[in-house]
């Protein structure tokens, strides 16, 4: 479980996230929704360690990880994808995945120069896992293409694959469906459900399409104006007047606070 405790994240004078608290339960698919500018991606960046919050704590299974840099959170089992594709564009698809595997021996510079044989076993394991992941995502035929040449949707799958390479406990998916055609969207949804139900990954996803969210998520967290609005099932929150107001309305909600 990830607990997001009373987090504030200021950029200059603007608080993108303002005294916001919520929990991402283990073993579930949780949606993080809210209008544009609600602070969803900032919240993800704080959880993944790309941003250090101005105040508040992030707990992973009860352990305070607020001060850990991003690369160390990965080792604790937090993997993510990005809203805009963040592929390694001058590397092949299979390399994009392999680089996400840990290879302690081969990533040591002196070993790389003087004892390249050392990393062979880990390299083979990384390759096998990468191929298995590509097969699971049904994009193994792309393995030798440069990632920069992929289509938008394929890049999203690639990022999902890269997240899976890291043996994560929890995967944060930031608008994995944005700009993806309907067919591929359905396929991605199927994979996400499969990952959760069959492989037990905890998943938290940011998505704008409420139908899509209701198809996937057990519970949703609704953010607006940097803070928590409500949580519940999709049904519950979509009947909540404040949510409707935040999504579609103007004045009433703002006046309320």
């Amino acid at each position, binding site marked *: 479980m990830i607990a997001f405790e009373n987090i504030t994240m200021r950029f200059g004078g603007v608080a993108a996230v303002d005294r916001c608290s919520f929990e991402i339960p283990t073993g579930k698919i949780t949606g993080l929704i809210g209008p544009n500018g609600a602070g969803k991606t900032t919240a993800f960046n704080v959880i993944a360690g790309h941003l250090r919050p101005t105040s508040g704590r992030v707990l992973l299974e009860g352990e305070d990880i607020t001060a850990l840099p991003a690369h160390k959170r990965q080792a604790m089992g937090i993997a993510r994808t990005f809203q805009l594709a963040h592929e*390694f564009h001058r590397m092949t698809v299979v390399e994009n995945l392999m680089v996400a595997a840990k290879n302690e021996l081969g990533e040591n510079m002196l070993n*790389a120069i003087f004892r*390249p044989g050392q990393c062979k076993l880990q390299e083979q394991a990384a390759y096998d896992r990468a191929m298995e992941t590509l097969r699971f995502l049904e994009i193994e035929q792309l393995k030798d293409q440069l990632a920069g040449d992929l289509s938008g949707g394929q890049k999203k799958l690639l990022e999902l694959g890269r997240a899976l390479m890291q043996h994560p406990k929890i995967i944060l998916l930031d608008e994995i469906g944005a700009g993806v055609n309907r067919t591929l969207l359905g396929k991605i949804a199927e994979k996400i459900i499969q990952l959760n139900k069959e492989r037990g990954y905890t998943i938290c996803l940011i998505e704008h399409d409420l139908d899509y969210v209701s198809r996937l998520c057990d519970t949703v967290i609704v953010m607006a104006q940097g803070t928590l609005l409500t949580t519940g099932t999709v049904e519950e929150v979509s009947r909540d007047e404040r949510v409707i107001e935040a999504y579609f309305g103007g004045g009433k909600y703002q006046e309320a606070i």
Partner: protein
Amino acid sequence: MELSGILFYLISFLIMGGIYSVICLALNMQWGFGGLFNAGIAGFYAVGAYSAAIITSANTPNHVGGFDLPIVVGLVVAGTLSGIVGWAIARICVRLKADYLAMASIGIAEIIRLAVINEEWLTNGSLGVSRIPRPLEEFFTGRESEMVFFVFVWIIVAITFWVAHRLYKSPWGRVMRAIRDNEAAAESVGKDVQSFRTQSFVIGAIFMGVAGALSAHYFKFFSPDATEPLLITFLAWVMLIAGGSGNNKGAVAGALIIWAIWSMTEIITQQLPPDWATRSSYIRMLLIGLFLQFVLQRFRAGLFPEKAPKLNVKSHG
């Protein structure tokens, strides 16, 4: 020109071409793999050249030392000191984004240059360090010593290439390329970006220092004029971009081709009328610039574009 004249012209061409190849391979480790925009190559080159010069030249009252130690010791010290300077700079600057790193590294290279000119006790100031030995000088003189030096330089080029190639093929190189392509994503897959960038900056700096040492031995005399950024930093960048950054063969090819153009334009500009002669170095720059334009219009990734290394794995294994 007689045949042996041409041969020796070729050898002196290949010596300088070899020294530039080392610089280019080093820059490729920093920029080609790691995306680190080092615009202060001349600084590391100067550190290497002066360390080697002071370590290996005979004792003199003009500056510290010389210590009259073997050339191999000089090379090791040159690489080590340059690496240490690189490490110190990396500690401060490696967090900067590419363009800011470029500015910071230009500044630091200029600081090194000014220190070299002004700290006369250390470097003999603008008069330079002289009587720097070449390898096996006691056995070979004149043109023979050139031959020996040619072999010596290309052994160093081979070693540098070997290191660069090993790095490029390794998981370490893959992490560097990932960081170059997308820093945030590399962090998110658990790579300590700062540590890797520091490593690549240092290994590049070491070989830039070695290249400086080689040129000090070749010229037998080294003064601040030889660390002119136009001749070192600018040319090295043109060489790597034209040859193909991210590709070690491209780095060497770019070094040789650009150096060939540079040397040949010297022959051409010598034929110019005297009142043009003062402008010759600008004309040469212009020609190099035109060539770079030509290459980049035709081959956007350089003459030898980056290729993903062959994976050392069995498929379906």
